[in-house]
């Protein structure tokens, strides 16, 4: 079964699409059949990064039932072994993908035959994004070392955490849990999943062990992008530490990607960064990250919607 790597992060410019296209390029180059899926619904632009300026088919065609099989919307890119499901020319209301379509999409993705499937997700914490991120246990968070970006990635992590906890409760029992949290800690604490978890620990011991086991199977990753020389190299480790200590989620810090003007150049020229500037620091960092992650990922895939 394919390895699915969802990539999520803060809004605009944190490098989600860049990372997706670069990882895709590295994996395909090493002979792995790789599929990029642009799930940044309503703001898709991954096709521009991988040299498919005018995609003929798109994800929308699958949603609108023009193609019944998601595999039919796959496009060939100029690079061998690298394939793309584009989000270009999506219908304008694609961002509000209904629930059943989302489930259908997730199911279809899991049935595609590729070595690696990389999901390029949109910014924000819409349920669609969260569910696509939770489609695999190997979600990758990416952020830049700026307070705005880190703030967004924390929000995303909390949202995903809460979304996953939510799976363990029925609608009514979750309501009562929320009520209990409110009673114990007050209104302002509801938006923090760690507070809800601490209530679960006290009130629903059996659920707590279930949730704990569930999260121990996850292998979240964190990547810091655009690290400039003057930035703190230890930042990534510290972020992971604070999350482990206060949220209780294990996030492995994979590494930094150096800030590099060449990335901007390559994107403006609409060529693959790794091919255009293969010997820059950022390119080295990307290859290093890929090596680390390929070793660290084990068997996976959960999709308990199926």
């Amino acid at each position, binding site marked *: 079964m394919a390895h699915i790597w969802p990539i999520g992060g803060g809004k605009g410019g944190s490098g989600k699409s860049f990372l997706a296209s670069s990882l895709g390029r590295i994996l395909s180059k090493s002979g792995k059949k790789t599929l990029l899926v642009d799930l940044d619904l309503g703001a898709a632009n991954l096709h521009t990064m991988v040299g498919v300026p005018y995609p003929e088919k798109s994800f929308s065609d699958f949603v609108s039932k023009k193609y019944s099989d998601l595999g039919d919307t796959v496009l060939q890119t100029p690079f061998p072994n690298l394939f793309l499901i584009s989000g270009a020319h999506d219908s304008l209301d694609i961002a509000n993908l209904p629930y059943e379509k989302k489930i259908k999409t997730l199911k279809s993705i899991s049935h595609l035959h590729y070595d690696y499937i990389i999901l390029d997700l949109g910014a924000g914490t819409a349920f669609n994004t969260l569910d696509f991120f939770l489609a695999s246990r190997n979600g990758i968070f990416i952020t830049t*070392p*700026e*307070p705005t970006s*880190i*703030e967004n990635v*924390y929000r995303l992590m909390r949202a995903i955490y809460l979304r996953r906890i939510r799976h363990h409760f029925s609608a009514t029992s979750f309501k009562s849990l929320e009520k209990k949290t409110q009673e114990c800690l007050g209104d*302002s604490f509801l938006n923090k999943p*760690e507070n809800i*978890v*601490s209530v679960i*620990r006290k009130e629903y011991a059996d659920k707590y062990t279930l949730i704990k086991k569930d999260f121990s199977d996850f292998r979240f990753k964190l990547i810091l992008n655009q690290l400039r020389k003057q930035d*703190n190299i230890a*930042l990534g480790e*510290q*972020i992971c*530490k*604070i999350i482990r*200590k*206060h*949220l*209780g989620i294990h996030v492995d810090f994979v590494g930094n990607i150096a800030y590099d003007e060449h990335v901007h150049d390559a994107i403006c020229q609409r060529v693959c960064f790794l091919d255009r500037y293969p010997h820059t620091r950022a390119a080295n960092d990307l290859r290093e990250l890929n090596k680390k992650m390929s070793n660290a990922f084990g068997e996976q895939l959960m999709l308990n919607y199926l």
Partner: protein
Amino acid sequence: MEKDFEQMNYYEMLDVAPNASAMEIRSAYNAALQMYQPDSLVSYSFFSKEERNNILFLLEQAYFTLINEAQRTEYDKELNQQGILKKPDNITALKKPVNIFDINRQKFKATWKKDNDELRRKIAQNPNIRDILSQQEIKGSDLKTIRNELGVAIEKIHQETKIRLDYLNCIELDETGKLPAPVFLKGFIKAYLKSLCIEPVEETSHRYMRSIPGQKLT
């Protein structure tokens, strides 16, 4: 999440082992401050103002308790009673500072002075030593005999003269191949003789040097 931050013990808050040294605790506290300060990139936007203040307060409390030896033992006892901390015997294995300077050295010199008269008296009275000292050539083994007769340990000579122990051993065992150059050797012998109060120093050392083969006075 195993525990809320408030429920952690001080060691867990600072992320140190229960037998951490004061140095480790201090650097752990510094690292924690870096993470939890209001202007820290890591925790900005992660906590609300009250949460942060609370955490900083707890960290400070943890640090001041653990850095104070009396309070720390008190706190350890408390944890022990709650069964959180295991037996305290691994806590006593703390690394203690080691003296670089031997304060007793002054005293040692004073007693050594007193011993000098004692040594002279022994040399004058001991017939064996007098026999050796009347020889034309004195060997390393002779020096060893004298030293043994006087009851002085070789380590004591080493301490007194600062000559390396292996050199002293070579001298006494007559391992001529391993001896230092004659210039140094002569100085060593003089120091050796002086430390044992054997007189006359100059002449006795001459007689020793004569006994060294291949080093006939140049």
